[in-house]
């Protein structure tokens, strides 16, 4: 693709993600469709329908969209900075820290004082941000950060966090952790509008920072030395990208647990469509990731309706085979 075609393709991806939200808000166990959705948005129809269509379905679709955009753009940034095609939003231990925060909350938090619906995400966010601080403290030597050190530290932090989680879960009352475990498998809920606004602000800042860094990401993806020769402050740029990607990942994990594969496969697929330029790749990944999680969650809600699947199960079932196909194609081409 050349010239105006790529921006055109980006517009298509944006439209697709909007269509995905509309579709997700039009399907569900109570047989209300697009027509009712439009009426509800116009303030018509009975109040019960409006609650289902707007507060339950639309809010949830928007949550899924934000989470998908966050994870996918974060994955794209990590892959560039770490120069590792297998990097995903969880690779630096951010998810492990969030999960640990959530489990620790459920294990020890005084119940009367924080509620699980907001307290657990807050604890998860705190856990993820602590991980980021630890990561920063451990991997910076004499003002420099080796990306290999970053990667290895992240992997070890994840493993360590999961060991501590196992400790909490195996020594505590299993009934206490039932909610936690399903939450960690990817629990999309219908968020309150204030939760949605919080997430939107966090994602807006993080994604904005990543988009603004797009040119630098192009250079970092080639190599630290090459980037430095071209006048990039490698240390600073690396951390701006890592912090921005980690904040959006932390926010996503905090509210919906771990939704796998999105941050891995969407940037790969978009790279095939848009090439390696992050000025297109970051926004394209964000919107395509949004579309993927919105659709996956719609499937999770409706496939076995009125029972629900964890959304992480759906993304993994689509993502796993899809990634293998991408990989095989690439191997055959090279």
């Amino acid at each position, binding site marked *: 693709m050349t010239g105006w075609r790529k921006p055109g393709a980006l517009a298509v991806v944006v439209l697709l993600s909007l269509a995905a939200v509309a579709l997700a808000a039009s399907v*569900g*166990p*109570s047989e209300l469709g697009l027509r009712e959705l439009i009426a509800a948005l116009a303030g018509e129809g009975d*109040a*019960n329908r409006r*609650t*289902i269509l707007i*507060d*339950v*379905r639309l809010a949830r679709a928007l949550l899924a969209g934000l989470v998908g955009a966050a994870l996918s753009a974060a994955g794209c940034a990590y892959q560039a900075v770490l120069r590792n095609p297998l990097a995903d939003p969880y690779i630096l231990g951010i998810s492990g820290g969030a999960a640990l925060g959530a489990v620790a909350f459920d294990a020890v938090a005084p*119940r*009367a004082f*924080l*509620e*699980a*619906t907001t*307290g*657990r995400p807050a604890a998860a966010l705190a856990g993820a941000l602590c991980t980021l601080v630890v990561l920063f403290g451990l991997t910076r030597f004499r003002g420099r950060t080796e990306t290999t050190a970053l990667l290895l530290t992240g992997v070890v932090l994840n493993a360590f966090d999961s060991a501590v989680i196992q400790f909490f879960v*195996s020594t505590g*009352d*299993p*009934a*206490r952790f*039932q*909610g936690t475990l*399903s*939450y960690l498998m990817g*629990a999309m*809920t*219908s968020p*309150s509008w204030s939760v949605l606004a919080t997430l939107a602000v966090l994602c807006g800042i993080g994604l904005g920072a990543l988009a603004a860094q797009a040119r630098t990401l192009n250079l970092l993806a080639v190599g630290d030395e090459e980037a430095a020769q071209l006048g990039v402050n490698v240390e600073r740029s690396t951390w701006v990208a890592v912090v921005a990607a980690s904040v959006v990942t932390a926010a996503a994990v905090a509210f919906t647990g771990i939704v796998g594969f999105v941050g891995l496969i969407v940037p790969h697929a978009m790279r095939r469509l848009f090439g390696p330029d992050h000025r297109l790749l970051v926004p394209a990944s964000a919107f395509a990731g949004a579309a993927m999680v919105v659709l996956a969650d719609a499937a999770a*809600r409706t496939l076995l*309706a*009125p*029972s*629900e*699947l*964890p959304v992480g199960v759906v993304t993994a079932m689509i993502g796993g085979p899809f990634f293998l196909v991408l990989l095989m194609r690439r191997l055959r081409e090279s």
Partner: protein
Amino acid sequence: MCPPLRRTLVLLVLLTSALACARPPSGESEPRASPSRIVSLTPALTEILFAVGAGERVVGVTEYCDYPPEAKTRPKVGGYVNPSVEAVVALRPDLVVVSPGPGNRDAALAMQREGLRVEIVPAETLEESLDAVESVARLCGADERGRALAASVRARLDAVARSVAGRPKVPTLFCLQTTPIIAAGRDTLPAQLLEIAGGRNVVTEPRYPRIGLEAVLASKPELILQSRMDLPAGEAHDEERFWSRWTRIPAVASHRVVVLDASLALRPGPRIADDAEALAAIVHPVVHEEPAAR
């Protein structure tokens, strides 16, 4: 580790396993004396043991066996899902009773391999609970008391059903946790007790499905029973706040979200009659005062 030592260890292990194999299996044919040292690996079965008068002979329980209070004084053999084989063997029980549960299968099999008499007593649904009362009693030689207890539980359940007969069935959601929402489905113990108490479960899926808010809104429950397995009674519940957002649910609009005491209607065993009575008082609170409707 130096090689000779390792060889000795291997030899030791082989020898002990050979010994274990040589031990005669606890044959089905030989007549059994009434057990005198009983270990229970399931809270419901512990309750039954005490209720049929075998409490004195219970020498080991799980950490979750908290009823009757006396059960808490017995040595603990680990959790419900991960009982310690060693702790059980060390108690030298002549009977181990266990309900199939998540994760206790391997431990129960290991105890059997150690030559212990392990009896598996399913106790999940209402009927299983009643059967369990009789079969646990039979296992410890208290057949008569078991039959009497089961009969009295059954009679009390019938009385509850009669007391609400003719009342409109209250559409009810029996919710176990809120993020995500997990509810008691068809043919589960909570649903069965709810129906005896004059409610109608709005969840028609089997077992304990994870359901969405939309399904709850669409099924229009007039009562939400919110349970928390992990909390003792009286502790603050944030679930009330979770539901308070959804004022379109009839139960929320009419302030009929009731937080249940921990484990109410969730634990199979002889107390299910108490549970049914407590549920009936919640589902039809004014059953005696209300003037005959219309």
